[in-house]
């Protein structure tokens, strides 16, 4: 995400980090907002070029823990034998443990809150000039709910996503797949649509597709999603997609 002040905010650090890193030479400040430390959300971090460029300051933000700091937890991965460098070798990188709450990055208001997913997992709401982007890549809002989606006050993620201009949300499973993966921390298509409708978002970007779903499967699924959704636009999350909020 590029804010009005030119600050680059990166949401999670997956495999796309390497390609992104090649295009941020001019940036003086990069913020990486990590939702949780599952490997698919941090695996690209050590290959992000700005981490190794002392002229670029990188702030990495991630969920708080009761036992170790974010830096200590990431150091399990960013250290030998898994990686040749250690966290302490990255002099231009600052790590921040993020409790639920709000902080500001150059006029961009960032609200973090824990959401329903195995292990402490944050979702993020970014607001600037009245525009709202909400990022909930791994989210199972219907887990154990008898009356989903009838009660926003008791629905995980609602506070972050309410009224978002762009909601980027977990869309991993078909309904059939979800029935065999309840509690794995992801959404079915039906739950995704119901959650998006509850929030009153303007645009829903589907994200965190199941890696076993082919392009054809996803195209067909999105046709069905668009046919049944009401009140918001659906954009399929794809590599390199650009959206102007």
């Amino acid at each position, binding site marked *: 995400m590029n804010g009005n002040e030119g600050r680059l905010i990166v949401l999670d650090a997956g495999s796309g980090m390497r390609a992104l890193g090649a295009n941020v030479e001019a940036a003086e400040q990069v913020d990486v907002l990590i939702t949780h430390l599952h490997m698919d959300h941090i695996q690209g971090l050590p290959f992000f070029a700005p981490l190794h460029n002392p002229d670029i300051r990188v702030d990495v933000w991630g969920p708080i823990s009761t036992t170790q700091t974010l830096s200590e937890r990431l150091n399990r991965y960013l250290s030998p034998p898994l990686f040749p460098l250690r966290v302490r070798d990255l002099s231009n990188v600052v790590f921040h443990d993020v409790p639920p709450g709000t902080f500001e990055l150059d006029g961009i208001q960032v609200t973090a*809150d824990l959401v*329903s997913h195995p292990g402490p997992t944050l979702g993020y709401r970014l*607001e600037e000039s009245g525009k709202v982007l909400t990022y909930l890549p791994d989210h199972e809002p219907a887990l154990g709910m008898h009356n989903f989606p009838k009660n926003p006050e008791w629905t995980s993620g609602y506070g972050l996503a309410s009224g978002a201009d762009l909601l980027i949300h977990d869309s991993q499973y078909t309904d059939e797949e979800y029935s065999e993966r309840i509690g794995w921390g992801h959404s079915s298509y039906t739950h995704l649509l119901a959650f998006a409708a509850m929030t009153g978002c303007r645009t829903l970007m589907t994200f965190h597709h199941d890696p076993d779903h082919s392009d054809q499967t996803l195209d067909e699924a999105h046709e069905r999603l668009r046919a049944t959704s009401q009140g918001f636009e659906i954009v399929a999350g794809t590599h390199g997609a650009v959206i102007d909020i």
Partner: protein
Amino acid sequence: MPHQQQPVEMILLRQLASYLAIPMWMMDDTGNLIYYNEAAEGLLGIRFDDVGPITSENLVGAWHVTQLDGSDLPEYDFPVVTALSKRKPAHQAIRFQGMDGVWRAVEVTALPIEGQGERFLGVLATFWEVED
């Protein structure tokens, strides 16, 4: 939080409670009663949907509570109040009159709920009916 939503820890706790046969009662960080489960409804003498949520102000006196021997029990000695104000677990045997008019004797255990980041979220209490 820009829009009203319970903390996810309390959401998940409520979902768990709704599946259990153990009577459970939940209060938020300011002492408002935000949920009790179906098993608790039998003890409290009224369905949650018919009475709750209840603000902390209205909660005082909603149920008549005494010590097990029938003597007065000051409000500040209620286990849920102790867990709320001192943020420590509390346990006590009490008698109370349900909203169905029936007096019951129960053991109450109240636990403060603390989330990561030293966030006090509220109180969870369980009830166990005992021989009066």
